[in-house]
């Protein structure tokens, strides 16, 4: 009888991992199906929205991590600035440097919010382009060039978002030698901020130009505005930008 019990244990010990493996196979095949769906989906707009949703989630994660990093860095930065300020004898200048430092942090934050809003707006514009392209496709128009242009714009938006996330975590330490070199010392930090923001600015500008190119490519389709929708419409709403 004991032999029977032991045999049964062996049978189930083998059967359970096999079941787990089957589940793993099911999950893998489901993921494959998602991938396949993305590749074969016929609607340019649906495809664009899937890709942009992934991009948005990734951006959100990066921004959360960057903001956490910034909080830690800001604490250290303020402490370091207080130490540096002790090298300045003039009280008015000390206050000025403190103000400049605050203004630089504010400017960085404000500019990045501005760039984020611009990119969000570009996403909604590209969504409209994809929608119009789908309508043109139902009339038999060749929209492959528009799809390519939309993809290029999407990649440019992703690159700009990555630059924003990276810039979000940055702080600019002011290293002071003495009162006489103060203007130059503070100027160094200011120039570093401007150079970094310029990089983000250029990436956002590139995304804008890519979106503009997608719009121009769309407009080249003959009688593109005459096409009407045959795409089913749902009740959920798209995001808007202030």
């Amino acid at each position: 009888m004991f032999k029977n019990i032991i045999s049964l244990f062996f049978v189930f010990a083998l059967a359970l991992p096999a079941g787990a493996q089957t589940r793993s196979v099911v999950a893998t095949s489901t993921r494959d199906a998602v991938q396949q769906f993305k590749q074969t989906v016929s609607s340019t707009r649906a495809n664009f929205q899937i890709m942009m949703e992934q991009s948005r989630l990734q951006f959100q994660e990066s921004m959360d991590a960057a903001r956490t990093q910034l909080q830690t860095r800001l604490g250290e930065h303020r402490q370091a600035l207080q130490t540096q300020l002790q090298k300045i004898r003039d009280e008015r200048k000390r206050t000025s440097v403190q103000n400049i430092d605050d203004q630089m942090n504010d400017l960085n934050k404000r500019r990045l919010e501005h760039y984020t809003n611009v990119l969000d707006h570009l996403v909604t514009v590209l969504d409209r382009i994809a929608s119009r392209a789908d309508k043109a496709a139902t009339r038999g128009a060749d929209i492959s060039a528009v799809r390519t242009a939309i993809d290029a714009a999407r990649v440019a938006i992703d690159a700009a978002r990555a630059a924003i996330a990276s810039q979000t975590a940055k702080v600019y330490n002011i290293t002071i030698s003495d009162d006489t070199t103060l203007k130059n010392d503070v100027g160094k930090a200011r120039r570093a901020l401007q150079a970094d923001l310029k990089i983000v600015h250029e990436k956002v500008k590139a995304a804008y130009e890519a979106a503009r190119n997608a719009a121009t490519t769309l407009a080249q389709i003959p009688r593109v505005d005459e096409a009407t929708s045959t795409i089913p419409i749902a009740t959920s709403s798209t995001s808007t930008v202030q």
Partner: protein
Amino acid sequence: MNRTYIVIGIIVLLLVIGVLVWKFGTSEAPTVPTPGQTLAPPADDTTGAINQALDGVTLTDLNQEFQAIDDEINKL
């Protein structure tokens, strides 16, 4: 006789565990979007409206934003 009940008990227990593992395991798999799923209506998607939306995008001048900081630095 007692051993027979133990064996039956173990079999039933393992079967229940097996069914639970299978059921909850597979429910964690992601759902697949269907190509026929519907999309929210976009805003006006005519080329005129699209161009207008793009014209409305303003990338404000970066250098100008530094004016206040530069003024403060010049006072140092």
